[in-house]
């Protein structure tokens, strides 16, 4: 993102040196203008993407956005209608799945039901005709890593969901592929097991240095796991970035709305300078001042996105020219550590605000039907052009 030539007014996170910020870094996986059509339906629409060695890249999107199709093209189960895929510099066109340096962990795990855990894990090594002692040693090592050694003689139907998932992981890791593809790896697990496995995955990735591409519809999973996320919608990647970039600086309404929750105000630009932008919004019923520019013509239609946790509520009147609205509390959801307030602004628009419950219930507490002032800091909102 640094490699853009013109001086940008776009907001940016300062980041430490990472391969994707280094224009000289050679991408490990290169997806170039890949399109996949099923009949008339375009599942993946002209996607280009670079993934670097050792990354844990997540493809995030709702169902039917094309993320699984993209993954299956990397594995070789589907071939692109147009475009090219390179893995470690090799064009993958025409290379069948069994000759690719990739392994995949399936959403359904796809464990062989007639084989024991041990046989499932050793299957891939046997196909490559490794010597028997080496197979035994590598399988034993792998089973130890996923803590399944006592279950090695069991069949998949004798295992719990979490254990099956670990068998699937072991089976896909044992060949030490250049690229590991994971299709909704944690989808079928309960919350606790999910969290444990998430950290386990990151741990494995750290230790083995394998490049991971994960497909998920779960933003929390993508946020915690990934080095970078590619958000997909309708067959296209709408934004690529680190979890922080995606959350703090969404580039369009779809990403802002899809990741976390957000309040959106439609408005038009009144001033657009290098160091600030002023937006007049009838929907919000006031002016919004943002402390960065957005490179757009004055008068252009924009949307302002503000995260609920970046808004403050107070019962006192505040006298500010902008970033200050008033409204009435229409609902409160008490969550323990924080509360979600539903505020009806004077313009009629309802917004969501979350605030930490720093003190116990008191007379300063905001209650239903209280008149409140809504404020936020000038660097909190993001202006979106699309």
């Amino acid at each position: 993102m640094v490699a853009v030539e013109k001086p940008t007014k776009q907001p940016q996170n300062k980041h430490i040196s990472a391969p994707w910020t280094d224009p000289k870094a050679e991408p490990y996986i290169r997806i170039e203008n890949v399109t996949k059509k099923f009949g008339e339906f375009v599942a993946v629409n002209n996607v280009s993407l670079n993934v670097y060695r050792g990354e844990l890249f997540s493809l995030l999107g709702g169902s039917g956005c094309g993320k699984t199709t993209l993954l299956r093209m990397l594995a070789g189960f589907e071939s692109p209608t147009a475009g090219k895929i390179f893995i470690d510099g090799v064009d993958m066109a025409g290379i069948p799945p069994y000759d690719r340096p990739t392994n995949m962990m399936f959403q359904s795990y796809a464990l062989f039901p007639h084989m024991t855990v041990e046989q499932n894990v050793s299957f891939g090594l046997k196909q490559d005709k490794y010597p028997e002692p080496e197979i035994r040693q590598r399988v034993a090592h792998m089973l130890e890593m996923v803590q399944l050694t006592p279950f090695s003689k069991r069949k998949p139907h004798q295992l719990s969901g979490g254990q099956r998932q670990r068998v699937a992981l072991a089976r896909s890791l044992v060949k030490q592929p250049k690229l590991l593809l994971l299709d909704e790896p944690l989808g079928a697990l309960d919350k606790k097991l999910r969290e444990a496995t998430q950290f386990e995955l990151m741990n494995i990735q750290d230790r083995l240095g394998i490049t991971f591409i994960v497909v998920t519809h779960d933003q929390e999973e993508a946020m915690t796991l990934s080095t970078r996320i590619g958000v997909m919608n309708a067959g296209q990647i709408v934004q690529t970035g680190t979890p922080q970039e995606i959350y703090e600086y969404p580039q369009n309404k779809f990403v802002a709305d899809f990741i976390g929750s957000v309040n959106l105000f439609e408005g038009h630009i009144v001033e657009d300078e290098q160091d600030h932008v002023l937006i007049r919004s009838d929907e919000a019923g006031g002016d919004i001042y943002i402390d960065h520019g957005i490179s757009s013509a004055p008068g252009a239609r924009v949307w302002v996105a503000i995260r609920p946790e970046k808004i403050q509520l107070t019962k006192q009147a505040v006298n500010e020219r902008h970033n200050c609205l008033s409204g009435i509390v229409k609902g409160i959801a008490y969550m323990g550590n924080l509360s979600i307030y539903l505020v009806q602004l004077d313009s009629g628009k309802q917004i969501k605000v979350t605030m930490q419950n720093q003190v116990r219930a008191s007379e300063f507490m905001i209650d239903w039907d209280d008149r409140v002032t809504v404020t936020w800091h000038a660097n909190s909102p993001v202006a979106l052009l699309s």
Partner: protein
Amino acid sequence: MAATDIARPSRLPASGWIGILLHRLGISGRSLVIAIPFLWLLLYFFLPFLIVLKVSLAFITIAQPPYTHFDSAGNFVLNIGDSYGRLVSDALYIKAYLNSLMVAAISTVLCLLIGYPFAYGIARSGPSMRNILLMLVILPFWTSFLIRVYAWIGLLKNNGLINDFLLWTGIIDSPIGMMNTNFAVYLGIVYSYLPFMILPLYANLEKMDVSLLEAATDLGCKPLKAFFLITVPLSVPGIVAGSMLVFIPAVGEYVIPELLGGPSSLMIGRVLWGEFFSNRDWPTASAVAIAVLLALVVPLMLYQKYQDKELEKEA
């Protein structure tokens, strides 16, 4: 039968006057439902079986019916020696039995070799095509079995359609003798029983998870090898079911060897027919029937045991 112990729903309370009456009598709705097929089998299967068993132990006589339960001295005797003795002493019966088992076994293997690709093709075809193909498999059942076997005579005989066609094209100078040969018997059995192989195989292959094959190729296994390592082992229940459905009726087959086979096609069904209608030796005919039944009950029981094991696995 452990599977049935696991999930037995609690009995529903009796309601209505019939229910209350049955409840008073100690009969539950469950046993009432089972009673109907149970009685049916008792009346039309087990009772006739007992009659045949009794006839097989009778003496042959010239009378109507041609057997008697009493020996020449007028005593009631179970006569094992005459009928069953003949089965073991006369090489004809043993030869007929072995021949029947061999013909049935070879036909089963042929049905499997032809039926497996067929079932696989149907299971992997698109939904609309699949229905058409299944329809084609079932379609022959709309015509009587006997008529379909007769139709083969019209095709196979010396001046039948096949020979006429080959003569007309000039491939052959004189008709090939296909009728009344073992070839015709195998052809008839494989043709007639193929759907019984295809349907259970299809049912099995259709529910197989295709992602297993993808996983196998993903792990470096070529598709053909994946077929033998994954698809075939997982379709064993279908192979067993289809083979039983072909093998068991093929052993006792009478119509096909009678109509298409020659004098050398000695099968136990024909022997039984001969004993019963030509020799009018009802005790020996009954003994042959009992022996066939015993020979078939063993594979049936094996099959039953296998199925129970499968059920247990799923539970």
